[in-house]
């Protein structure tokens, strides 16, 4: 009985170590906030972290995987990363806390469920500075693979919008 409890404690400890890793490009949110850390299991003494890649073209994916592996080793585990493609990550997997952290960091969180996209329409995006919905898209593609550049017509501030996929 005690062995089982120890094991789950270790798994929880491994999860906590991996989950605290921050996104290198948006250090306001962790891999847990983003919903890309799927699971951490202890298999034959090895902490196996399952990670889902975000945007196909995101160059941070490798850095994130390496950071999770390092965090697990620092916590005393032998570690292995498994990349999981299916089911694919979507921005709907970002946790409510993650969305709030993005907003506080100055990045408008993705509008839920609009990832499919259409030829001629924009989502309604609220300005992360003043909350106004009177905003406009400046460029569909911003400073990283995950961001678009928007501007608020009310407070005149430009801001990043976390692209919906």
């Amino acid at each position, binding site marked *: 009985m005690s062995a089982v409890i120890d094991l789950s404690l270790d798994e929880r400890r491994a999860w906590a170590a991996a989950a605290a890793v921050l996104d290198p490009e948006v250090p306001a949110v962790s891999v847990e906030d983003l919903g890309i850390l799927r699971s951490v299991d202890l298999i034959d003494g090895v902490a196996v972290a399952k990670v889902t890649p975000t*945007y*196909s*073209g*995101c*160059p941070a994916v490798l850095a994130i995987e390496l950071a999770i592996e390092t965090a697990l080793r620092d916590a005393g585990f032998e570690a292995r990363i498994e990349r999981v*493609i*299916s*089911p*694919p*990550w*979507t921005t709907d997997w970002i946790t409510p806390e993650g969305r709030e952290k993005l907003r506080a960091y100055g990045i408008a969180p993705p509008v839920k469920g609009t*990832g*499919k*996209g*259409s*030829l*001629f329409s924009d989502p309604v995006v609220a300005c992360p500075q003043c909350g106004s919905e009177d905003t406009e898209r*400046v*460029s*569909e*593609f*911003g*400073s990283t*693979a995950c961001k678009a*550049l928007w501007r608020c017509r009310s407070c005149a501030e430009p801001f990043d919008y976390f*692209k*919906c*996929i």
Partner: protein
Amino acid sequence: MNHRDALLTGLLRVADDHLILGHRVSEWCGHAPMLEEDLALPNIALDLLGQARALYTYAGEVEGQGRTEDDLAYLRREREYRNLLLVERPNGDFAHTMLKQLYFSSFMHLWWEAACASDDATVAGIAAKAVKESAYHMRHSAEWVIRLGDGTEESAARMAQAVEDLAPYVDEMFAPDDVSSTLAPQTLPDNPALRASWDAQIAAVFSEATIEPHVPRASISGGRDGRHGEEMGFLLTELQYMQRSYPGAQW
């Protein structure tokens, strides 16, 4: 063609399309007509390379010979690449590039949409993400085709020239082949079946852009069999330079 060979060929074709087009789009980095486009085009190139990586990795697994994504991307000969001739065409001017992007992203958006229903979980997983990314590419290029086609006399003339220049490369996207006949539509999409939707999408954009549709012309093909235009060798020389000069080099 058996299932495994057809899947391998089908994956490599689409992976090559994305690698080669990604390389072409990356050539705009630092040369785009405005700052937002200088951000947008490398972003799109990165998406295309990311999609290529996922496809090459899976192709390597299907092949089962231990070849990695890098082996497949960098260490094949020109005749082994199976990309469409459309994607290897030189960039030309911005109108030419945007029309090429519209043609390809509209095609791929339909292709990924169909691939989401694949009975192969990896194909469906790659497709479910890529379909959303291709929607961004499609919208970006459609907006530019409309802006330029319905713009100044100069921009409209350049767009009309692009329509003329790229006309021979459209049919190859939808050509029936042994991969489609073996795997479509359960595992990979049926390319010929995507034609009607593609035509309708392009016609809608052209109408908004006040562009005359292209007059049907003799088409040029061969890319799917590894027969490429003369520009392809120059492209590969640059693309493969590091791995050919320093085999096994890693970042």
